[in-house]
């Protein structure tokens, strides 16, 4: 590195020949790159005894603000020890720079913040969760108020952004959702094949794959992919708009940000998610079917005949009916987190992470609640 090969600043003790006063001679470049080793040397330097000290700067080849600060700091600490320090031989421009640094001296130490106690941390964390929940609920409330107003005046519903969002969150998600649920169907059939073969119940593979995909996995999988794909995008988009004050700009021109930014996204997802779920139902079952034929010798025709008997309409409907609820969760959490962004680029990243984690968490919790409710309703 250049810093090592460059000339280094030095300070050497000596005695002035004429007067015999102790003299410290500074030499070399006292610059930000020249003082790296000097700093450590100064720490361990044993200053010669004597109340009077002369610092001779005539051999100093360069001085910048960092070097001047180090010199000033050294002089100040010597003076604190009760010595009187005199500078000599400093070039006029160096002297004026030193003067400038001395005049601008400030307390470098920032305010020391004591680490909060364990109890305080727990309290703060709990309080922030409470505030977050309240904030989320009020955001949901506001959004539904806006939705209500829009429904009263259907001309205010912005179809163009809704269609645009459907394209981005729905149509463009077809390959990835389709592929993943296809693979999921294969995995379930593969895992089930062994067990079923043991009982000679090969044909029940259709029950296993069909029920698992249609009732649970397909809506859940779709919601999780959409949360990662679109929910995070919503947070990043709204968050960046918050940083660049675009949200404030919208308010000043009399547009409710929720109406322009949240409603189209939410409505688009509500429309698109059930459709995606139906689509992943098909691809998932297709995956299972292919596996059933190759591993269990269950032909497509037999599989489909069995599927028809095994899957009641209610199983299919319960699966698809979850989708709009998941859509709402993903859209609302994504947008809410976007609005929570404050000022910095780092905050955008944090909120995006939170958005994905929380929406997946809420989707799974809601799915569990659905299971309980459907069980009670005997669906």
């Amino acid at each position: 590195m250049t810093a090592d090969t460059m000339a280094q600043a030095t300070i050497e003790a000596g005695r002035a020949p004429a007067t015999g006063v102790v003299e410290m001679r500074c030499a070399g470049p006292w610059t930000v790159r020249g003082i790296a080793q000097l700093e450590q040397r100064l720490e361990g330097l044993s200053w010669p005894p004597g109340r009077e000290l002369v610092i001779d700067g005539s051999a100093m080849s360069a001085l910048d603000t960092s070097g001047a600060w180090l010199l000033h700091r050294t002089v100040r600490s010597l003076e604190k020890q009760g010595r009187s320090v005199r500078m000599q031989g400093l070039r006029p421009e160096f002297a004026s720079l030193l003067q400038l640094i001395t005049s601008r001296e400030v307390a470098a130490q920032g305010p020391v913040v004591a680490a909060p106690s364990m109890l305080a941390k727990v309290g703060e964390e709990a309080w922030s969760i409470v505030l977050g929940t309240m904030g989320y609920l009020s955001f949901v409330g506001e959004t539904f108020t806006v939705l209500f107003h829009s429904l009263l005046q259907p001309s205010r519903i912005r179809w163009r952004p809704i269609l645009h969002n459907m394209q981005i969150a729905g149509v463009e998600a077809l390959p990835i959702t389709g592929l993943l649920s296809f693979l999921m169907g294969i995995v379930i059939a593969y895992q089930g094949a062994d067990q079923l073969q043991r009982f000679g119940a090969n044909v029940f593979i259709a029950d296993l794959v069909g029920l698992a995909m249609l009732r649970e996995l397909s809506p859940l999988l779709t919601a999780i992919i959409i949360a990662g794909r679109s929910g995070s995008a919503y947070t990043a988009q709204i968050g960046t708009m918050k940083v660049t004050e675009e949200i404030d700009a919208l308010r000043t021109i009399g547009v409710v940000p929720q109406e322009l930014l949240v409603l189209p996204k939410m409505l688009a997802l509500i429309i698109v998610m059930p459709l995606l779920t139906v689509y992943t139902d098909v691809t998932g079952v297709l995956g299972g079917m292919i596996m059933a034929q190759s591993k269990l010798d269950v032909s497509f025709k037999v599989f489909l005949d069995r599927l028809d008997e095994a899957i009641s309409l209610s199983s299919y409907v319960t699966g698809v009916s979850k989708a709009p609820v998941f859509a709402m969760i993903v859209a609302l959490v994504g947008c809410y987190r976007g609005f929570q962004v404050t000022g910095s680029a780092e905050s955008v990243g944090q909120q995006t992470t939170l958005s994905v984690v929380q929406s997946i968490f809420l989707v799974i919790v809601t799915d569990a609640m659905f299971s309980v409710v459907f069980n009670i309703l005997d669906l």
Partner: protein
Amino acid sequence: MRTSERPASGEPVIEVRGVHTRFGSAVVHEGVDITVYPQEIFALVGGSGTGKSTLLREAILLQPVASGSIRVFGEEVVGMGDEEALPLRRRWGVMFERGALFSALTVTGNVTMVLQEHTELSEKLIDEIAAVKIALTGLPADAGPKYPSELSGGMRKRASLARALALDPELLFLDEPTAGLDPLSATGIDELIRSLRDSLGLTIMMVTHDLDLLWRAADRVAVLGNGRIVGVGTMTELSRSDDPLVRQYFYGPRGRAASEQAWKQKSIS
């Protein structure tokens, strides 16, 4: 005013020769030549879209040049790789138009980050040096622990300047140092730029629209127009220029007000 009497001498710090720049089919520069001498405050002006900021970005290796030569500290920067540019980059500081402070770091953090990256000094000394830089730019001491989003526009510019000064550069590039500031803060920046040059011996190249800043701080000014330099000189020299583009720039209503203001100040002092 001592600024206009400063002689333009010594080895040039920046030498731009015959620079051509194109964005697709749009030609921005068609043979631009400028020379910046040590310890000079050199300003680049021109109407919108004349490629002032582009030229500055080319000099600091953020933008490629179609043809021509740009020498900074005697080294050709056109076509230079990042590896070779590192030693040069340590010798200059850049203040961006909108500050470009790292939003995740405090003001102190923005300055110390540069020092930590390029020096082997102790944490304590780095913190102290950062505080000195922040104080040098005229920010109050309590600005250090604040985040960029908590600062006003003027303070953000000063914080950005403090970061540009972190490694004690010899050359400072300022992109629109007073843009978006109120007149009082802008005047503060004028004075700051001059005092930094005087006390630290910096060479400063800036791009600006601010006529007051030009009259108060710039030693020499180059006017860009039609892809080339249409006039170079002190503000007094330029104000006598016959070039229509220069006259248009300095003799609009705002130009006249700023020059009258400058004359008044001169006659008072």
